[in-house]
């Protein structure tokens, strides 16, 4: 579980996060949604410790990240898996080396044991026979799956995903969404997904926070979001033509 308490973050005069408080539960896919510039990525970077909040606390379990010493922070980072928007695979390494990377850095396992674990996670994300290929030789969807494999290879307790569906076709995006949700349940981890994709909201949004101009304006689940009469939710959800039409039909049918 991750608890966020009254997080403020500014860049110069511009206040990006204006007092965010929420809880990201274990064993659930927690979505942070919002329009571009709403502060999603800054919040994510604060959660990851890449940005230091100006005010407020972020608790991993019972301990605030700001109170951790360097050793505790390092251990926490080893316990975090991250799926970046573009995959962020190391392009000078093969797929096998990419997935093995966290094991090589943080464990003292034998190569054969590491290889076994790599093959296990690659099979889990339905990627087999690509071990010796380089990231540039596989598709964007496959790169995302490799990135998920790399994120979970060291059995982390926290998984962060930044726009996991960006640049993917709808079918592949659904595969990635389902994979994230399945892994969250299977490993019983705390998963936080930053997205502005309504398909992801509907597919995996067990717990959703909506940000607008640095403020948390709504919290709920994918079951609640379409019933909400919160103006900010309506503005966000029904911003596309398709959803506007659905809304019109819903209103007509009462």
């Amino acid at each position: 579980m991750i608890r966020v308490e009254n997080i403020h973050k500014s860049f110069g005069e511009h206040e990006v996060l204006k007092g965010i408080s929420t809880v990201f539960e274990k064993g659930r896919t927690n979505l942070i949604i919002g329009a571009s510039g709403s502060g999603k990525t800054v919040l994510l970077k604060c959660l990851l410790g890449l940005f230091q909040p100006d005010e407020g606390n972020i608790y991993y379990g019972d301990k605030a990240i700001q109170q951790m010493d360097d050793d505790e922070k390092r251990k926490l980072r080893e316990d975090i898996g991250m799926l970046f928007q573009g995959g962020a695979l190391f392009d000078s390494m093969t797929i096998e080396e990419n997935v093995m990377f966290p094991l090589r850095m943080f464990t003292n396992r034998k190569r054969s044991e590491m290889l076994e674990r790599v093959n296990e996670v690659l099979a889990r994300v339905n990627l087999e026979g690509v071990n010796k290929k380089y990231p540039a030789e596989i598709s964007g969807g496959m790169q995302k799956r490799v990135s998920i494999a790399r994120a979970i290879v060291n059995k982390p307790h926290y998984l962060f995903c930044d726009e996991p569906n960006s640049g993917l076709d709808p079918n592949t995006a659904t595969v990635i969404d389902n994979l994230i949700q399945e892994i969250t349940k299977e490993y019983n981890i705390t998963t936080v997904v930053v997205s502005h994709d309504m398909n992801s909201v509907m597919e995996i949004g067990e717990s959703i926070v909506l940000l607008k101009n640095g403020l948390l304006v709504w919290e709920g689940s994918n079951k609640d979001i379409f019933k909400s009469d919160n103006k900010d939710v309506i503005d966000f959800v029904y911003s596309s033509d398709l959803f506007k039409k659905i809304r019109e039909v819903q209103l007509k049918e009462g």
Partner: protein
Amino acid sequence: MLRRVFSGFTKASVLKELIFKEINDLILGSLGIVSFISFFVGGVIAIQTALNLENPLIPKSLIGFATRQSMILEFAPTFISIIMAGKIGSFITSSIGSMRVTEQIDALDVMGINSLNYLVFPKVVALMLYPFVIALSMFLGIFGGFLAGVYGGFTSPGEFVTGLQDSFDPFHLTYAFIKTIIFAFILATVPSWQGYFMKGGALEVGKASTNSFVWTSVLIILSNYIVTSLLLS
């Protein structure tokens, strides 16, 4: 930046592999171009010196002397380093810059790896072998001068070798290698800084590579002047 490069060390077994990879990319990968340029520039120095010797009272051994002095004091350490600022400097900036653009550096940071130590320290260590590249450049330049001078009919082998040995001051080699070590450090750190702290996309990677070459060259020239003033004046 430098404090982080030399702290928070990457796991030794991984670091060892990274250092060998950098030696391969930065040192071994440069030998071909350095050899080619040094050999022919040495030849050109010998020919030009010979063609400017109009006074019959000046001995032909001056061709060997001038080739040695030019190669050891300036061409090998300084001008090869400026050429390397273009070759390995651009390579370092563009490879680290691409990693920045594609979030690979963020991935290292999120994993709790000191990305500056992981990326830059192996380059600094690999470039400590750079004096060997310069030593090869000196040797090949003088050898090129010898072949051009002798087989071009400008001097005899004996005269050239006499010139090579004439008024040889071993401190000139010490001076050349002292500045080579300084240039190696500049070659490893300035392009890394340009790549690591760049912002933007592919276009900015190109701009960072250009800036990297400019700043590395400027710092090499300036430090060359300072070291020469301190050690030879």
